[in-house]
């Protein structure tokens, strides 16, 4: 890729992720975060909260599987044992309660995991994910209509889905991916590195955790799988649908939260391709191979040898001379000083 | 300090331990005689164990020398053979001979009539076998006859002994007087024993209640109504087999609560019972979650994988050369009672490949070794008389 092209892509896509994570311009009303045990969404959710705090967005956390409110959350709605309708009511009430304190016009609704809701027996057949989610974005009532709401829904990819009520209905995951304007798949950086390293050697990329399909293995993550402290971070595989309909696909990396202060306002996400571990900067090719021996044989030719080789007239040139059948085809070669001619063996 | 450790081991349940623990609460403890027939303390930790009726199966049960009281053993079998059924029959027959109360679930009374006939205490048979290993083939054969003769006497003595000398302590040194722990049986004969009529058959009759609830209630009632010292054996052949059980019984919410209740029943203080369950793996593969849960609820899990072509070897070969027979299948121990519950490991038999051989009079489990190559086998067969002892030496 040409350098100009790269830098264009860099600025463009970095601007996009910055906009998405900071919820500017309601770039994406519904973001779907697909995580797994190998890379849970917690760091990304915390990043969402951090940025929302910075820009004073009202945060509602709908907890299906979290017990304690995360730090920085304005309203915490425990969805345990609640029906979808009750959840919607509680979420809407949370904002009207909270809005009295501060006139923030934007709100962020985080759902820590949608899987329990999709699995729950109490949700009846009429439950519809799309209407459930859209009721957050477009709440009924005139007062709330001015609010710009963004919804970030986490879906655990590795939790198996319940059997579909009807074989003709789409699965919840395909439903969610269809509805979402932004889909962020999460990968562990160390796994991405390990897989890239394998691919670079044309090996089968390794799999981790549940994909290993080992008896008794749920998680394969280890802190320092390749003994590399800096291989921390979350890789975001972003798929964004613009309003124009155009899609953008880009890979980013979110560094661990310990690397920057919580009030840091600049963009911390970088393109995966720009990470030095993923794509090490190409070192200039100076004096290639001069220092280290590559082989005990000298495979290269000196200039003189090359000249001599070019000077050899190959047999088919001689054969084309038209001396008649059976003639020609000799190797025409002028002996050099280093050639050791053997009368008995060699013949010309 | 090693003394203390043993004491701790001893206190893990059962009647003997109850009395040792000096708990006035344990109702059965004072009355429990030291020498309940067919029950002996485990050499490993002293918990009471009972024999499965198959000496070599007793030996692989994690060093306890038998099935510890209160434990369930799940025997799984691949294919359509009925090796597991043979194990069950030995188990039931052993219970009959030892005057244990045997409960048979889901089988008609013919099943009880087909129990294998008694040969004698397995110790005698084992002694004979040990000698046979060391001696020449001919002598070994003679000993075998002798042993069987003696064993027959001892075996006939056992039932009378059980009623009479209950106060005889197990610590009594002389092996002659000690009642046999395990017996040998002959599959081709029929067991005749006075207490065979006491088999408790629990039929699978449809009723308003769920089937397994009925079974559990009847088991519970039968155990509750028997004298407190009775040792019970619960035999459940071919669980979930659709020819015996109604289809809805293979629902997890039907069979798993049953197994759980069974486990609870066996773990009830004061109840001295063991259970052996067989399940056809062909219908319910191990790779399904249901079977895995059945295994998780059971204390011991062994799997029988018969070799496909060795079934006819059983018919042609005589019992006399039984220990030279080719193995008829592989036996895998997936879980052993007590050992795995504690965390596994540390058993000398763990990691061993087992092969089993069923002959007329024994179900033998021994370490599996690959047979010699095909071509070699003919040569061996030709040179049987001279080579036999050496081969036996090599094998053990």
């Amino acid at each position, binding site marked *: 890729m040409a350098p100009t092209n790269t830098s264009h892509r860099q600025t463009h896509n970095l601007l996009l992720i910055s906009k998405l994570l900071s919820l500017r311009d309601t770039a994406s009303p519904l973001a779907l975060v697909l995580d797994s*045990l190998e890379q849970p969404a*917690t760091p990304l959710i915390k990043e969402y909260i951090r940025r929302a705090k910075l820009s004073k967005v009202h945060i509602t956390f709908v907890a299906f*599987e*979290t*017990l*304690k409110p*995360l730090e920085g959350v304005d309203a915490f709605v425990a969805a*345990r044992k609640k029906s979808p309708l009750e959840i919607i009511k509680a979420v809407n009430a949370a904002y009207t309660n909270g809005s009295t304190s501060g006139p923030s016009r934007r709100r962020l609704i985080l759902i820590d995991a949608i*899987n329990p809701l999709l*699995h*729950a027996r*109490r949700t009846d057949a009429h439950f519809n994910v799309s209407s459930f989610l859209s009721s957050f974005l477009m709440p009924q009532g005139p007062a709330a209509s001015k609010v710009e709401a963004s919804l970030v829904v986490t879906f655990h990819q590795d939790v*198996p*889905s319940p059997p579909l009520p009807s074989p003709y209905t789409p699965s919840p995951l395909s439903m969610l991916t269809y509805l979402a304007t932004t889909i962020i798949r999460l990968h562990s950086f160390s796994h991405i590195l390990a897989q890239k390293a394998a691919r670079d050697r044309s090996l089968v990329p390794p799999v981790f955790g*549940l994909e290993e399909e*080992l*008896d*008794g293995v*749920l*998680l394969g993550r280890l802190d320092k799988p390749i003994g590399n402290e800096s291989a921390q971070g979350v890789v975001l595989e972003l798929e964004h649908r613009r309003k124009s309909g155009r899609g953008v696909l880009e890979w980013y990396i979110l560094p661990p939260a310990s690397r920057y202060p919580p009030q840091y306002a600049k963009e911390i996400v970088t393109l995966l391709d720009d990470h030095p571990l993923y794509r090490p900067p190409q070192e200039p090719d100076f004096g290639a191979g001069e220092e280290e021996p590559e082989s005990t044989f000298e495979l290269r030719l000196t200039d003189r040898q090359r000249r001599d080789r070019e000077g050899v007239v190959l047999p088919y040139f001689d054969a084309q001379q038209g001396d008649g059948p059976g003639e020609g085809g000799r190797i025409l070669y002028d002996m050099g000083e280093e050639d050791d001619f053997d009368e008995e063996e060699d013949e010309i | 300090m090693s003394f203390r450790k043993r004491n*701790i081991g001893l206190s893990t*349940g059962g009647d003997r331990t109850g009395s*040792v623990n*000096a*708990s*006035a*609460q344990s109702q059965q*403890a*004072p009355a429990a005689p*030291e020498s309940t027939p067919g029950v002996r303390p485990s050499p*490993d930790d002293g918990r009471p164990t009972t024999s499965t009726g198959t000496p070599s199966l007793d030996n692989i049960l994690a060093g306890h020398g038998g099935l510890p009281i209160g434990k369930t053993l799940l025997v799984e079998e691949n294919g359509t053979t009925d090796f597991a059924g043979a194990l069950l029959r030995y188990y039931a027959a052993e219970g009959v001979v030892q005057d244990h109360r045997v409960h048979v679930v889901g089988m008609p009374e013919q099943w009880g009539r087909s129990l294998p006939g008694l040969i004698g205490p397995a110790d005698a048979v084992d002694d004979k076998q040990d000698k046979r290993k060391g001696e020449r083939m001919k002598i070994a054969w003679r000993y075998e006859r002798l042993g069987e003769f003696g064993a027959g006497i001892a075996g006939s003595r056992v039932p009378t002994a059980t009623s009479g000398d209950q106060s005889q*302590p197990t*610590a009594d040194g002389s092996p002659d007087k000690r009642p046999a722990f395990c017996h040998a049986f002959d599959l081709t004969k029929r067991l005749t024993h006075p207490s065979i009529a006491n088999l408790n058959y629990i039929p699978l009759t449809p009723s308003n209640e769920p089937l397994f609830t009925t079974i*559990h209630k009847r088991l519970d009632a039968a155990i*509750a109504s028997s004298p407190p010292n009775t040792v019970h054996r619960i035999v459940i052949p071919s669980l979930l087999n659709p020819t015996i059980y109604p289809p809805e019984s293979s629902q*997890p*919410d039907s069979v798993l609560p049953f197994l*759980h*209740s069974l*486990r*609870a*029943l066996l*773990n*009830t*203080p*004061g109840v001295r019972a063991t259970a052996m369950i067989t399940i056809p793996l062909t219908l319910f593969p191990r*790779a*399904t*979650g249901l079977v*895995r*849960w059945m295994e*998780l609820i059971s204390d011991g899990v062994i799997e029988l994988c018969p070799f496909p072509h060795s079934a006819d070897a059983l018919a042609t070969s005589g019992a006399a050369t039984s220990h030279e027979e080719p193995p008829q299948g592989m036996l895998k121990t*997936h879980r052993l009672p007590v050992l795995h*519950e*504690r*965390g*596994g*490991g*540390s058993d000398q038999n763990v*990691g061993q490949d087992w092969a089993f051989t069923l002959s007329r009079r024994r179900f033998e489990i021994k370490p599996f070794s690959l047979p010699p190559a095909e071509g070699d086998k003919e040569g061996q067969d030709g040179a049987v008389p001279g080579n036999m002892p050496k081969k036996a030496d090599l094998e053990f």
Partner: protein
Amino acid sequence: MPTQPPLPPLLAPYVSSLPPSSLIVLSTVLGAQGNWLTLRYLYAALNASSTSDAALILGERHNGKKQKVVLVSFLRGWEFWRAEAKRLGLDLARLTDKRQFAFVDGLSELFSGPRTTPTTTTTTTTQTTPPSLVPSPRGGPVPQRTILPSRSAPGPIPARGPQPARGPAAVAAPAPLTPSAPSAPPASSREIGPVKRLHLSGKGPAALDRLEKDIAAVVAHLSGRATATAEGEDDSEVLLVLDQPDLLLAATGPGQGIGATEMTEWVMGLQQYVHATVMTLAADLPLIHNASAAAHQMPTPLETEHAAFAIGSAHRAHLVMQLRDLDTGAARDVSGVLRVSKGGAWGQSDNTDANGSWEEKEALYFVQRDGGVSVFGRGE
């Protein structure tokens, strides 16, 4: 005598000083059961208060808070836990008397009602405890082997002599015996016995709610509060150990209105009452992977729900301790592999100092015959 320390050094950071409202998932397989590890959690929590010398070490880390444990076991009875804890030097019966430990029996009567045997069906506190709950001498072992021959006499009472006032008759005493436990009305302590037996009655989530209430009552009783409230400022921390609650899910199933979500919510409900929760789950291959998308067959509901519950719990866990068999097959000096991984909820709370010592690692373990456990790295 165990040659190994009760808490292997490699294991110690993971079993002691659990962060508040945390969930530890302990995943096991058929051949690698986690009871030894569960016992280590019991030991880490209870030992500080039962023996004085260790209290100096562990007590400081707990900020002087008293650790109490409620053990809810669905697959194993009281007798097993009592005997196994004894091998570690924990006298659960005595701890029960001292109101530091409570056992909730999810085995005996979960699916079947109380037994019909009149001798075992008992109502009062004193008799609900199994007979052998009566503490046997921990300090001075009776030379049992030597006494055995004389034991055939129907009188074990002489041996009881040396242990005075510990029998069930003395249960009225324990309440005053507990020195620092918050004083609860003694009347209520009569009703809730040291061993609570769970019984699943009814169908669906209502049945689970009932179980939750029962367990919550035990927790409340133990922590000395009249009503079960969320964990507040108190001088005791209750650790809840759930031993294989996945049995409930497997044995009921979606057909009865109990699925993975209901189970998760049930566990969450229980978590609210206690300081920290340890839960053991089966993670056998058929139970986890049959339901995955890569499976070739249609998964059964049992498999789907179990996988959803187990994986969902791992998502909710701070720490996942995974036990499995050795990949290369069974060995004589290795019982299995322990892999410690951070769960999905890792890092949600910001108090990194409490769990800063947690580091993901994989180690081998070996359970000895005497109950001692050694945990070691590969090649050590």
